[in-house]
């Protein structure tokens, strides 16, 4: 049979199945294949909080969306072109995200009576049979049966055989999109190197999927998506949490300080710990503490001792760390606090994304307790901003928040990574030894950045005491003097404000320097806002997009930049947080645009909203 080959600019595929169906692995493998081929891409893993929610139910559906193409890609796509549905529940919960006329690859075994019941489909209905999918290009395949047949002689049990199903899907899609399967074969061999039988079975089913596409007449088309025209350079694929870990390690290497990461497992921040714990040979010391508080307190101890000290968590854990962040602010020690945000409040939606911890970072402590705050805008940008957080903390002897979120933490994109010599240097100077004849050491004497000396225990002549009680300026002794307290509160604020002299000015990401509307975003919404802005500009609207990475203090030119636009809109995945601060600080009548559904913005939503605002 002859297959037609069609060239496409970009494609969105959504893999959906039960939590145990291996959809995340399938998605990440496909992502690697697309990345190595040279496509630009963005991904969106979307999975339940339960490790094994009841099999076959809507609650147990795990999804992975990838958008890849020969053009620049900034979002995982508003709607998918292809939906892989391993069962009824997966189809039911993902159908509304599929384009009209899109391809559905349905595993028919997942549409039997039991699965229909588990997905709460009325008894006499079956979407594969009742015509309800007539508006789509439905491909029915009994993947379970084919997988079992392929592995009949493998000697494996049914359970183990059924776990290979996802490889069939991957093989089939590799065929459809003309991607080589060699890298995945290599991956499987290395992952199961201690269990040859399982490795062989997975590879066999992967090849069966490929052959199925080639030999059956079900798929009349194959697609070609050319490599994207991207800036020249060497690329790799990177996920946000991975990039965060690499940024922290890079700061440790560049500052020549060993890194200490004190933390407690929490979704979606745990992968930072997992990643860091692999690199002990880089002098990376990870400490899984008994709780969130011990996570940050151990880091404070490490900072006192002269390490690059970091704690990491998500919103609920940050709440527990609040008092210790106050201590670090009083101690004026360098400390980086990583917050991979998730939907709250309380336990909220642990696996869903949100940007609702900005005010927590700004104000979430007792007393006047200002800190520096930076935020990453994309998976790869986690590297830059994690590095920046460390640089600022060390240069200014100050606690710094690094904000990421579940969406960019788990999302992947191609990254034109820097070589280490291109990273901004970080110079560390500890206070030196003193002799008895020298003047007494003053632990709170400040330099031009208002930073105090970093005086390590073990250094002769520097014996001094620090603590959470208010300090006398310069001497660091306990002081209840009213004027001194006011002075110290102001100094700690000024110390944060001065950081603005050491960070880049705010740029306009896309669009003119002035105009009708400025879209002012921050954090993980970057891709959606960038895509929306490009579309609006192409339709002739006077719209520009600026994305803030330094949130406390803001870049010095931010106020002036906003003043060049008639309207400023602040789209956020929260109930209006940055917009509050912008209004407060700049007295700008900024418009809030909010989505609070645990899901990222779709670019089309943004486009429509901006048109509405432009009137």
């Amino acid at each position: 049979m002859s297959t037609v080959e069609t060239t496409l600019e970009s494609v969105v595929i959504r893999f959906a199945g039960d939590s145990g169906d291996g959809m995340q692995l399938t998605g990440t493998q496909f992502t690697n294949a697309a990345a190595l081929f040279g496509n630009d891409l963005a991904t969106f893993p979307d999975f339940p909080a339960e490790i094994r929610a009841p099999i076959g139910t809507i609650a147990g559906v795990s999804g992975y969306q990838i958008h890849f193409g020969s053009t620049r890609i900034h979002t995982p796509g508003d709607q998918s072109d292809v939906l892989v549905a391993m069962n009824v529940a997966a189809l039911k919960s993902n159908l509304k995200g599929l384009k009209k006329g899109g391809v559905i690859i349905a595993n028919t075994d997942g549409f039997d009576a039991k699965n229909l019941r588990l997905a709460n489909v009325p008894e006499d209905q079956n979407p594969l049979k009742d015509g309800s999918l007539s508006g789509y290009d439905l491909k029915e395949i009994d993947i379970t049966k084919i997988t079992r047949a392929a592995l009949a002689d493998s000697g494996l049990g049914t359970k183990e055989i059924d776990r290979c199903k996802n490889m069939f899907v991957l093989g089939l899609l590799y065929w459809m999109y003309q991607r080589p399967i060699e890298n995945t074969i290599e991956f499987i061999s290395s992952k199961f190197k201690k269990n040859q039988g399982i490795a062989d079975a997975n590879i066999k089913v992967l090849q069966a999927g490929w052959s199925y596409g080639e030999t059956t007449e079900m798929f009349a088309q194959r697609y070609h998506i050319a490599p994207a025209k991207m800036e020249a350079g060497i690329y790799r694929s990177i996920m946000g949490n991975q990039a965060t870990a690499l940024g922290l390690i890079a700061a440790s290497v560049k500052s020549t300080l060993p890194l200490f990461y004190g933390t407690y497992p929490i979704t979606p921040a745990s992968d930072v710990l997992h990643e860091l714990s692999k690199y002990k040979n880089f002098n990376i010391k990870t400490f899984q503490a008994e709780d969130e508080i011990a996570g940050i307190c151990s880091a404070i101890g490490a900072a006192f001792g002269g390490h690059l000290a970091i704690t990491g968590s998500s919103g609920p854990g940050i709440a527990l760390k609040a008092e210790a962040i106050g201590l670090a602010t009083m101690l004026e020690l360098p400390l980086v606090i990583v917050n991979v945000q998730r939907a709250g409040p309380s336990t909220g939606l642990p696996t869903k994304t949100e940007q609702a911890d900005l005010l927590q970072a700004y104000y979430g402590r007792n007393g006047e307790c200002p800190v520096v705050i930076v935020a990453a805008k994309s998976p790869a940008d986690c590297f830059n901003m994690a590095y920046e957080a460390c640089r600022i903390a060390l240069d200014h002897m100050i606690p710094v928040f690094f904000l990421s979120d579940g969406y960019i933490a788990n999302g992947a994109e191609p990254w034109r990574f820097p070589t280490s010599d291109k990273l901004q240097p970080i110079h560390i100077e500890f206070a030196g030894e003193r002799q008895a004849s020298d003047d007494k050491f003053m632990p709170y004497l400040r330099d031009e950045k208002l930073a105090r000396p970093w005086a390590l225990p073990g250094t002769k002549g520097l014996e001094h005491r620090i603590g959470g009680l208010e300090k006398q300026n310069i001497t660091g002794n306990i002081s209840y003097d009213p004027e001194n307290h006011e002075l110290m509160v102001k100094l700690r604020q000024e110390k944060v404000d001065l950081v603005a002299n050491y960070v880049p000015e705010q740029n306009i990401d896309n669009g003119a320097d002035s105009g009708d509307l400025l879209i002012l975003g921050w954090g993980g919404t970057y891709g959606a806002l960038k895509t929306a802005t490009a579309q609006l500009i192409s339709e002739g609207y006077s719209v520009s997009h600026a994305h803030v990475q330094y949130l406390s203090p803001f870049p010095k030119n931010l106020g002036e930049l906003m003043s060049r636009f008639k309207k400023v809109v602040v789209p956020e995945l929260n109930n209006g947080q940055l917009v509050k601060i912008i209004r407060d600080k700049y007295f700008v009548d900024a418009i809030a645009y909010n989505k609070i559904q645990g899901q990222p913005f779709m670019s089309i939503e943004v486009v429509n909203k901006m048109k509405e605002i432009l009137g």
Partner: protein
Amino acid sequence: MTIETIKLTSKDFSSDQEVRWCPGCGDYSILKQVQTILPDLGRPKEEFVFISGIGCSSRFPYYMDTFGMHSIHGRATAIATGLKSTRPELSVWVITGDGDSMSIGGNHFIHMLRRNPDLNVLLFNNQIYGLTKGQYSPTSEQGKVTKSTPMGSVDYPFNPIALCLGADATFVARTLDRDPKHQQAIIKRGYEHKGTSLIEIYQNCNVFNDGAFEVFTEKGTKKQETLMMEHGKPLIFGAENEKGIKLDGFKPVIVNLADVSENELWIHDETDLAKATILSRFYDDSSVEGHFPRPFGVFYVNNNKATFDELFNNQIEHAKESYGTGDLDKLIAGRETWVVN
């Protein structure tokens, strides 16, 4: 080159800050004993670090001319664990109280003990909240009438020594503010121990809980109410040293020395966890008929458990030996890259 060794004195360990505990507070004695023994430990002054939480006792670091941190309530143990694991060559001390360690910091306290970092912990137990002006603490006896419990506390108290043994502590001892010599000897032993040394110090709060430990310190009762444990020696007590402890199976029994021969007595063995556990339960109210005397000294020592800081840093060294010092550029590039021209 000549290396000059200057003999330090207790004065070298006194900071210029005025000591602000209430006159008559037991804390003064502990401060004095620590300042007395530090010069004898043969260590440069800059290697000592004192970390405290919140409470009267936690003001301690301000009075020591060493490195120090007066941190937040209950967290000194966690901060000290972070410091010691990153700077194992330092001598790190934790100063805490019964509220700080047993109440708000209870979690960090037990986890420190199970991990066993090489820290010296001085637990000032005055069985009351002093700094907040007199509420009952987790070691106050049941029925304690305080500002927050006008009808008496209904809480059962913790038995700190039993708690520490339960958390697999490797050095557990008890001493008294009013016995400077004993205190000095025990603190020195704690310092020498590799691993977390936990020393409970009965400390009188003469303002909010005066006389809590009177029976163990006053001349008239001290000898019958205290049991001074010494490794390898029989457990003997009493006004005339006329009584002893014997083990009847697992059951301790008080005997008159006149009635038994000395080799029938319980010989204290610091390395025996089962026996230490029984001794930790000598915790009766001294008004109860037939109660056991309160033991002082070292309950238990385990020298066979590696310290957390050792294990933690060994992994780093091992990783460097196995994989070589990391190459940042290789790490950033990862395993799979592609080139765009």
